[in-house]
């Protein structure tokens, strides 16, 4: 079920009507959350509910076993990880591996007839498997007590607002919240409403309008030979993907707040970062902290040296790229980020630049240019297309005439608002304005206009980009 659909509107109304009553009873609350979440998820394809149940059941039982059989806890952890990675490998990466094996076998002249196998990708599989793995890993590390109540566990695992596109919430953060009856305060409710309205604005107004232009540009089998054109298109894509994904996270967090739950911040104005280190503390925070805690630290802590830190970071970034999709483009995207990060750590460029006048702004501009280059690989439909577009972008002599299809004054205004919002965050205006005497009135009116905008300036409805991951 899409957040931006009439079906979800009806679902949300019914859900919150029942929730007002049922939230006060522990066990019925869990059962209701599971049923609602499975309806939400099963709207796409009910068969995949079985997959969530299966992989969840393994982790639930593994969690209990890790606590009970401490001498064999490593075995149960491996079992849990194999279950999750196995379902990811089967549903998400099988096609990638078999097609690459086929290419390799042909290149080596082995003459093996390797069939390319592709299964339907269950929506949100990368999110819920990672969420589920954090549960068993935290129990293994002694950071979390397993829940004995299976309904409690599945209410955590399947919680619908963040099930399909995050944020990825750790069990240690959410399980205790689910255990108690939580009545949101007026402040929390207002925060929730604000997040939902702004989230919709980001998605249906900004991302959907820009998405149409970006899709048209990338669909052209003969890319326009103009460097400025592609810098503009990639800028649009950068804003689109940010607003699409951050919009989803905001809506999920807003719904969580209305239910009385607190989901962690997932995006914090990533495009105002002055370094890649900072970028990864602002972009998809729940995923980057997941990789930091469960991949980077375990590798780095084996041998605390500068070289090992770089190795750990490269592995983490490549895995993060691969997490996004079974395609070489995503691996290159992860590799580029690892490269940027390594160079940044070796040269200490952002720190050096911060000491000169205008250096902080220059740092941000450098980060954005490099980020834009990495986004080409993220968006392109093939490696060839990505290389071709990058070639055009990086050659200033490519100056063919161009016209941006479907660009209108309305989109121009929307773009201006989106960029202005980030500039205001960059100069710290949004913190300053909170001191303003009439801030609350101003904020309320802004929320109202964002709602009006979401209705009357909406673009053509598109699926959230991160659903495919």
């Amino acid at each position, binding site marked *: 079920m899409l957040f931006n659909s*009439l079906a979800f509107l009806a679902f949300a109304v019914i859900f919150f009507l029942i929730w007002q009553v049922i939230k006060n009873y522990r066990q019925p609350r869990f059962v209701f959350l599971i049923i609602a979440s499975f309806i939400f998820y099963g709207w796409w394809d009910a068969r995949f509910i079985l997959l969530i149940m299966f992989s969840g059941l393994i982790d639930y039982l593994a969690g209990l076993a890790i606590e009970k059989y401490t001498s064999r806890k490593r075995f149960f952890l491996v079992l849990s990880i194999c279950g999750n990675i196995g379902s990811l490998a089967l549903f998400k990466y099988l096609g990638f591996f078999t097609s690459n094996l086929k290419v390799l076998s042909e290149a080596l002249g082995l003459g093996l007839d390797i069939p390319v196998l592709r299964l339907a990708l269950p929506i949100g599989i990368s999110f819920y498997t990672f969420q589920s793995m954090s549960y068993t890993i935290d129990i293994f590390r002694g950071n979390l007590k397993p829940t004995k109540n299976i309904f409690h566990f599945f209410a955590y695992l399947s919680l619908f607002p963040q099930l399909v596109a995050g944020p990825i919430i750790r069990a240690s953060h959410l399980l205790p919240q689910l255990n108690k009856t939580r009545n949101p305060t007026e402040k929390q409710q*207002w925060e929730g409403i604000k997040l939902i309205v702004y989230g919709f604005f980001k998605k249906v107004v900004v991302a959907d309008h820009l998405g149409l232009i970006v899709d048209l540009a990338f*669909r052209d089998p003969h890319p326009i030979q103009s460097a400025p054109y592609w810098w503009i298109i990639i800028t649009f894509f950068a804003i689109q993907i940010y607003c699409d994904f951050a919009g989803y996270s905001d809506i999920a967090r807003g719904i969580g707040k209305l239910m009385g739950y607190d989901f962690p911040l997932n995006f914090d104005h990533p495009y105002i970062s002055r370094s890649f280190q900072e970028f990864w503390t602002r972009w998809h925070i729940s995923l980057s902290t997941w990789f930091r805690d469960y991949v980077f630290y375990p590798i780095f802590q084996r041998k605390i040296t500068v070289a090992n830190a770089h190795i750990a970071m490269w592995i983490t970034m490549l895995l993060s790229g691969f997490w996004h999709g079974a395609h070489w483009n995503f691996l290159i995207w992860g590799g580029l980020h690892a490269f940027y990060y390594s160079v940044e750590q070796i040269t200490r460029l952002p720190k050096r630049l911060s000491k000169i006048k205008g250096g902080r702004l220059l740092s941000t501009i450098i980060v954005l240019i490099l980020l834009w280059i990495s986004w080409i690989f993220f968006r392109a439909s093939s490696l060839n297309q990505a290389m071709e577009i990058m070639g055009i972008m990086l050659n200033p002599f490519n100056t063919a005439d161009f016209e941006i299809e479907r660009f*209108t004054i309305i989109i121009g205004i929307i773009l201006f608002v989106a960029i202005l919002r980030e500039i205001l965050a960059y100069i710290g205006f949004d913190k300053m304005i909170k001191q303003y005497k009439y801030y609350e009135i101003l904020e309320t009116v802004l929320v109202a206009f964002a709602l*009006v905008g979401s*209705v009357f300036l909406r673009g053509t409805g598109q699926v959230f980009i991160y659903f495919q991951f």
Partner: protein
Amino acid sequence: MLRKKLLVIAIVFWSSVFVINLLRPEKEMKTIDNDILWMHKFLWKNKLDIVITGDSRTLMGVSPEIITEHLPGLQIGNFGFPSLIYTDEYFAYCEELLKPDSKSRTVIFGISPRALITYEVEYCRFKEWSQTSRNIFAMKFIRHSGWLKHYFDEITMKDIKNYFNPAPPEYLSVNLPSGWTAARMMPENPGYTVKSYRRRYQELKVDQKRVNLMMKYTGEWREKGINVLGFWMPTGSAIYFIEEKTSGITEDYMKNRLEKAGGTWLNIDTTGYHVYDGSHLRYDAAVSFSHSLGRNIKTAIGVK
């Protein structure tokens, strides 16, 4: 405090709805809103005797109302969609629209090369609505709340331009419950789409896999006792020439393929029909063509 804030939001929102609808120029003349029309077509499951398939040329060029005059008593639907690409999913859906107990079960291909090219199908209304259509309740709700939807239609550049510089609408379309969109353009521009077609076929050709898929379904449907008819959708002479030369298929080629697969080709003279934009039939030409089509269908399926 929260209540006051929500009240402010409600006042601003509903005032905006009121003002926007007050200022908004008159909508194009339509009997059914576009989205409602697409959704309406998905509610035809098990209700039709004859399904007419195709892209926007079929959508605008074939009137089931007129065909029914030649085949009284049969339920006929125009299942055409703008930018349609023939896919497995589309063909499967066409079959589902047919009444299981009808003696005249017929699928008709209104063929244009545009619907068979190698192309992504992301922007096809069929694809979009086939996903929504799984929820019949939601679809019925949308259909019956169509009048309400009008008040929340998005503001387009056209709306803004028309507000500051009111001009008669260039394009008028009327969506009819049979699935036909009767359309015209003022002033007409026969060269409007020619350039884009020329460019399209330089880059993209008809995908033989799609043609094979069409023939595979033709064979299967024939085995199930479903009549399968095909005809070349009339278009402007310039585009006809471009498609015959550069699309990768010709009218004769499709005729042979369909007949080999067990289908029946309708030999209709497709020349001389009035097109308003170089590609699509004007509503009066569509009426005239539909009479001709109706007579041919009647003969082909042997209905008395």
